[in-house]
C-alpha cells in the first residue's frame, strides 16, 4: 500500500531539491549552448590550433562517461588550487558535457545549409563571421531546434548523476528522504514525476517555438489550409 502521508510530509523538501536541479540545469544550458556555438565555429576554423583544440574538447567530452567527467572535475580541480562548491562543479561539468553535444548539433546544422549560401555571402564582401551571423546561423535555427531540445532533456536527466558528488539536487534529496522514511516507492515516484513535469514543459514550449521558426512559410500555409479543410469538412471527428 502507498503511504500517502509521505507525499504531504516530504513534498516541500523534494521541491527544494527540484529547485536546485532547475537552477543548475538553467545555468549549465546558458553556459553550454554559447560554448557549443563557439566550439562548432572553432572546429571549422582555418587556424589549426583553434580547430585542434575545439575538436579535442568535443571528442573528449563526447566519448567518456559523464560520471567520470564529474569525478574528474570534482576531485582533480582542487589539486590545481581551484576549490569550488559541489554545485559549481556540477554546473561546470554539465555545461562542458552538454557543450560537446551542442557543438556537434550546431555543426551539423551549419553543414546542412547549401554551400552556395556561404559563397554568396562571401562573394558580396562579408567576412566569415558576418556571413555566419547574417546568413548561415539564422537559417540553422529551425534545423537545430529539435535536436537541441532533445539534448537539453538529456542534460536534465543526466543532472541526477550530480548526486554522487553531494549536490543536493532532486535525486540526492530523494535518496535522503528515502533513507529517512524507508519508503522508496513513494519518494521516487515524486522524484520521477518532477523530472517528467519539467521535461514535458520544456518539450511542449519548444514544440511551439519550432512551429514559429519553421523556415518554409509556403509549406506552412499549405499545411494550415489542409488542417482548416479537414476541420471544416468534419473529418476530425
Amino acid at each position, binding site marked *: 500500500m502507498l503511504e500517502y502521508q509521505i507525499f504531504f510530509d516530504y513534498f516541500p523538501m523534494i521541491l527544494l531539491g527540484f529547485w536546485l536541479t532547475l537552477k543548475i540545469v538553467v545555468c549549465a544550458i546558458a553556459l553550454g549552448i554559447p560554448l557549443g556555438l563557439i566550439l562548432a565555429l572553432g572546429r571549422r576554423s582555418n587556424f589549426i590550433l583553434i580547430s585542434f583544440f575545439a575538436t579535442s574538447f568535443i571528442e573528449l567530452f563526447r566519448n567518456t562517461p559523464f560520471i567520470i567527467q564529474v569525478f574528474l572535475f570534482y576531485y582533480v580541480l582542487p589539486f590545481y588550487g581551484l576549490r569550488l562548491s559541489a554545485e559549481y562543479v556540477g554546473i561546470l561539468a554539465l555545461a562542458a558535457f552538454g557543450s560537446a553535444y551542442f557543438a556537434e548539433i550546431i555543426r551539423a546544422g551549419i553543414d546542412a545549409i*547549401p554551400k*552556395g*549560401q556561404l559563397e*554568396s555571402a562571401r562573394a*558580396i*564582401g*562579408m*567576412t566569415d563571421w558576418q556571413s555566419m551571423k547574417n546568413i548561415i546561423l539564422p537559417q540553422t535555427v529551425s534545423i537545430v531546434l529539435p535536436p537541441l531540445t532533445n539534448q537539453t532533456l538529456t542534460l536534465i536527466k543526466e543532472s541526477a548523476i550530480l548526486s554522487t558528488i553531494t549536490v543536493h539536487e532532486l535525486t540526492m534529496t530523494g535518496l535522503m528522504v528515502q533513507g529517512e522514511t524507508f519508503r522508496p516507492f513513494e519518494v521516487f515516484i515524486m522524484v520521477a514525476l518532477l523530472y517528467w513535469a519539467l521535461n514535458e514543459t520544456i518539450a511542449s514550449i519548444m514544440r511551439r517555438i519550432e512551429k514559429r521558426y519553421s*523556415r518554409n512559410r509556403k509549406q506552412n500555409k499549405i499545411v494550415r489550409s489542409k488542417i482548416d479543410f479537414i476541420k471544416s469538412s468534419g473529418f476530425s471527428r
Partner: protein
Amino acid sequence: MKPNFLEIIDINKKFGNINALKNVSLNVSKGEVICIIGPSGCGKSTLLRTVNWLTPPDSGKVILKGEIIGSDTGKMTFEQNRSLNEFRARIGMVFQQFNVWPHLNALENVVRAQIVVRKRMRDEAEKKAIKILNEVGLKDKIDEWPDNLSGGQKQRLAIARSLAMDPILMLLDEPTSALDPELIGEVLSVLRNLVNEGMTMLIVTHELGFASKFGDKIVFMDAGEIIESGPPNTILKSPKTERLKLFLEKLSLTSL
C-alpha cells in the same frame, strides 16, 4: 599604353590531379562584356571564381585597376584578407543556383549586405534597394519571401542584390542555365540593360544568341585552357580550331 581594367595573369588551379586551369591569362578593358563558353568541366566557372578569389588560384595574379586581388604568394595576411573583402564588395557575382537568402524577404536580401559590408544607414539602403528592385522589375515583390518567387524572379533578385553594392565588375556564372526556357528572357533583358549602361562583365553562358549580340569578345575554353578568343562574329562564324568547331556543331544540334 593604357593599363587594362582587369588583368588575369597566368592562373593555375589544380583539383587533386585535375588541371582545372592551365596558365590562363585574360585582359579586360572597362565596359567590355566577355562571354566565356566551352564544354562542361572545362574550367570556365573556376576561372570566374578565381577572379574574386572564391576559389583561390594555385599560382598567378588577378589585378583590378592596378591592384592585386587576394595575394600572389599563396599566403594571406590579415591586411590582404581585409582588402579582399573590399574587392569582393565591388565585384558583383551571380550564381547559376541564384543563392538568394531564403530567410530574408526580397527587400532585406538587397538591403542586408549594404548595411553589413557598405555600412550604409538602413534608410539609405532601403531607398536604394527599392530603386534597384524596381529596375529589375520586382517592384511588387518587395515583401515577398524568396520561396514564393519563380526562378527568373529569384535570379533577378540575386542580380539586384549585387547591383546594390555599386559594383564596377560583374561576374555571372551561367545565370540562365537553371531556368525554365520561358523565364530566360526576363533575366537576359535585365542583363541587356546592364550592358547598355556600360557595365564590365564576365559571363559564363550557353546563350550563344545573347553572347553574339551583346558580347564584345567571346572566349572559348576547353580542358582548362583558353583555346580561342575574339569578337563574336569571327569566333562563331569562322572558328579556327577543330575543338571549337566541334563544340559549335554540338550546340547547333541541340538547338534543332
